[in-house]
């Protein structure tokens, strides 16, 4: 398998403070990489730097011509934002047709009725699916998925992951997933990257995720378990 992404010695600084130091990893085409770490570890910053949204040092090499879909952790919108779901899809540009939107909604198991709802009115779980569908409309090769933390309950999360993996199998997507849920990591990821400012572990989950690494990552069992259910 060829690598779709190579990252070498990535450094990110923000306002003079170091956010990420010397991160190196690569992602194979069609595989799932899980990025784990406590809050504030720089996971979202990592994803943002991968799409060139924030400045960084080091090397980020995507396969040439790669199409990237991005699902953000949360959206900065008000509940009464005057924007319907349908209009939100059409913001992608004129190549988005009604047919394509229906197909994309189908793949995330949403009813087309949602199209006339306001983007701010629908539930967080529904919005997450809308965001995935939005990304899917671009027929991406890679999907960057920044997991929402406290906004969705466990069952909601599970069904979103199920849907994501179906999507991955169907289309041979490569996925980079920021996750707090170790079950997700063990079940679906071929490799895992543990971050806490530095690269603490990187490799197949079953080999690199021992209790020592996890303790180093989250600062002890207790902290980790609280985090998982929080």
């Amino acid at each position, binding site marked *: 398998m060829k690598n779709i992404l190579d990252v070498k010695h990535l450094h990110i600084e923000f306002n003079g403070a170091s956010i990420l130091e010397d991160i190196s990893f690569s992602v194979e085409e069609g595989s799932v990489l899980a990025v784990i770490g406590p809050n504030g570890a720089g996971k979202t910053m990592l994803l943002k730097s991968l799409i060139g949204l924030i400045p960084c040092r080091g090397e980020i090499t995507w396969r040439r011509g790669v199409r990237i879909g991005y699902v953000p952790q949360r959206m900065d919108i008000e509940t009464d934002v005057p924007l319907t779901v349908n209009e939100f899809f059409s913001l992608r*540009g004129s190549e988005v047709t009604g047919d394509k939107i229906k197909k994309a909604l189908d793949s995330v198991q949403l009813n087309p009725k949602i199209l006339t709802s306001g983007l701010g009115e629908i539930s967080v779980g529904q919005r997450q699916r809308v965001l995935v569908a939005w990304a899917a409309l671009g027929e991406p090769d890679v999907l960057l998925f920044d997991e929402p933390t406290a906004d969705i309950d466990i069952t909601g999360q599970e069904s979103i992951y199920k849907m994501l993996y179906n999507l991955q199998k169907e289309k041979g997507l490569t996925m980079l997933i920021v996750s707090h849920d170790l079950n997700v990591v063990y079940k679906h990821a071929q490799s895992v990257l543990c971050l806490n400012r530095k690269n603490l572990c990187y490799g197949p989950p079953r080999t690199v995720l021992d209790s020592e690494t996890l303790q180093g990552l989250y600062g002890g069992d207790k902290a980790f378990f609280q985090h998982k259910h929080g």
Partner: protein
Amino acid sequence: MLVAGFVAASASLLGSFAILKRMALVGDALSHVALPGMAIALLLKINPFAGAIAFLGTAVIGVWAVEYKSSLSLETVVGVFFTASLAVGALVMPEHELIEALFGNITALTPLESVISIALSIFLIALLLVIYKKLTLSMVSTEMAQSIGIRNKRLDLIFLLGFALSVALGIRFVGALLMGSLVIIPAASAKNTARSLKSFMAQSVVFGVAAATAGIYFSSRYALTPGPVFILISVLIFITTLFVRRMRAV
């Protein structure tokens, strides 16, 4: 009245994005910057509009650079710097011009200025209609915008420059003190009643134009300054839309 209609249309269309971006008070701050520009232009005996444009353009580029380069809060910078320029403007401005600069007087426009105002308003409306999808997306989520190749920084700058143009146009109409309202109130009203982006933009323009034409009409009929009359009518519209919103929520 025609000029007022066009200026109000472009300002309220721009305002709908300012509301989405939660930059409601930027218009107020920017209009303060226009004041010293107009004052210096008057002293040098050039058109105040040109002075306003020059100062506004410099100011928004400054704001844009600060937003991306400095860790200072944007609001702090804007608050300090822009109020200072209001003070400078008030000192430099000849006294008999000051009232007009602060509260506007669209009836004082020369025919050439009117034509230029209308042309620039049309340009601004066209510009906004071309970029509105990108603009909305980058406001809703910069990451998603970036992922489909939208250059957010550049878009931000274009929007701010449009904002500056809109302020320069509107300042002759409602004046430096009330300019912020010309941009914001129609859009704020439309947000109360609209649920989709298209109706939001359309309603904002309709409210703005209606208030502007009614404002000109009443002010000429009762010999009042048009700017404040326009603002009061906009506020009436806003209050009405609040009731509509209330009723819908029940």
